[in-house]
């Protein structure tokens, strides 16, 4: 892959992306437009996150990539290969070892540190899109801090399902100013964005937007006074392998017995836990 520049993108492109990132950091939750490049993976497969990763990665960085909690999914592996092939940097599955973490649909269970950067892949950056199709108008609504549309969506869910049915991508208010889609992470991960030690960046390749939540920023999930925000609860359920209860669990079905069981969604976290206990990880 030596015919490519370091980290695949040319310096011009990287600079443009870094500028967008800086602007995003300066205006927490604000969607900064950028000239999303063609990537060797399809748009909608994490090109936004990937471009941020490529623009930020340096020779001493260690990269972790996860897809819905798994380091080994095809998509995560392909992204790692591309970055590694064009930079020669190390990759890891251990959250603690990583300096850059690119992720789809999860924030790891291991708490992030201030020397780490979390990069989330975003399919739809606009929290008002389903009530307002025009980009021109949603921009105006953000400028005027007019978020009735986002509240209306939650209200409608309560009317239909008697609760806010939104599992993933539950909207948040950042720094008391911008309403933001946190990307399709479960509600379980929303509180991790609030006052995070790590910088969190969001990249939407198809929609050509970058936004950011700088460390120690106030991030509140929207909620009506009498319908408080709640994370997913796994009451009475535990990971079948580790017995853990305070993590995000996946519900699975045993194909032979038809029985339902649960596993940690964050597989590297599960593995680390088992290694620490000296148990072999059998699946």
């Amino acid at each position, binding site marked *: 892959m030596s015919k490519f520049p370091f980290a695949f993108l040319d310096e011009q492109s990287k600079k443009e992306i870094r500028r967008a990132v800086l602007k995003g950091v300066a205006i927490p939750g604000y969607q900064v437009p950028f000239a999303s490049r063609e990537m060797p993976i399809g748009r909608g497969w994490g090109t936004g996150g990937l471009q941020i990763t490529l623009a930020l990665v340096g020779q001493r960085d260690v990269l972790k990539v996860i897809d819905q909690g798994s380091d080994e999914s095809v998509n995560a592996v392909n992204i790692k290969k591309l970055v590694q092939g064009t930079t020669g940097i190390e990759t890891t599955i251990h959250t603690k070892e990583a300096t850059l973490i690119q992720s789809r649909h999860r924030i790891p269970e291991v708490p992030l540190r201030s020397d780490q950067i979390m990069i989330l892949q975003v399919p739809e950056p606009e929290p008002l899109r389903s*009530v307002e199709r025009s980009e021109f108008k949603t921009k*105006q609504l953000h400028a005027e801090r*007019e978020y009735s549309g986002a*509240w*209306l969506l939650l*209200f409608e869910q309560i*009317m239909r399902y008697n609760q806010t049915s939104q599992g993933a991508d539950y909207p948040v208010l950042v720094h008391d100013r911008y309403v933001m889609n946190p990307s399709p992470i479960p509600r379980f991960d929303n509180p991790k964005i609030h006052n995070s030690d790590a910088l969190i960046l969001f990249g939407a390749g198809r929609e050509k937007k970058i936004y950011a939540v700088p460390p120690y920023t106030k991030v509140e999930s929207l909620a*009506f*006074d*009498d319908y408080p925000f709640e994370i997913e609860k796994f009451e009475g359920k535990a990971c079948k392998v580790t017995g853990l209860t305070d993590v995000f669990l996946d519900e699975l079905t045993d194909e032979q017995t038809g029985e339902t069981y649960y596993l940690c969604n964050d597989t590297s976290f599960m593995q680390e836990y088992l290694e620490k206990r000296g148990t072999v990880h059998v699946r």
Partner: protein
Amino acid sequence: MFDKPILQIKNLSKQYGEGCSYCQHENAKLERNFCPVCKTVYACKNISLDLHRGEILGIVGESGSGKSTLMKCLYFDEETTTGEGFLTDYFNGNENIFTQSGQQKRFIRNSLLGMVYQNPMLGLKMDFSSISNIAEKQIAAGNRNVKQMVDRSNALLDKVNISIKRSKEPPKNFSGGMQQRVQIAKALSSNPPILLLDEVTTGLDLSVQAAVLDLIKTIQRVMQISMIVVSHDLAVIRMLADRTVVMLNGQIIEEGLTDQILEDPQHAYTQQLVYSLL
């Protein structure tokens, strides 16, 4: 009726197009409201009117006379070109509402005004439940309590004679008359002192029309809301409006008590309008 008007409009104009040296001249001859040279449309020209507390003001005029444009300017759907507007409930009528910031205009629109459009597609989200549609205005006015909004919305549905059992159905399931009722409930939901109604019965069956008009009359009596009712139908104006203004080519050509205008029209155009109805 003799206190300070709740709404005052002064010299409101709305044009579509830039205008040119020809049509900006004082005595320029326009084709109705249209500049033959630069094709600018002068949809509203120097409209001044007062609305008093508890009053229903009728606006009547032929198609294209600028009635809807005026309503849209008042509700900030359209930017006015020039002119002033004052609401007694907004800074005591001392601030021109048309030059406020977007945020302030939203506040006025969500808290002080209610709008019912001729076409319910413009006023409602057809795929959202009716109760959400009604609550939307309360949400926009800053309410964050679900129970309060549900209670208020249900009370309004009851007021406009829609069964609460159907509150969670989307308006697209409803007949035209019911959709207008949902719009009315929505317009009332933040308890605004002023309601704007643009041809709300046009396109409805006669019996349905009568029921909706009845409802409007009742609401006005019970809630003491001030209303501007736009119609090209003099029968509607006759039934609802205390006072009426007649518009033609973007201008007010006559105004007065509704009875007076219907019995003794002064302007040739109004005479024609009234006599053709008889």
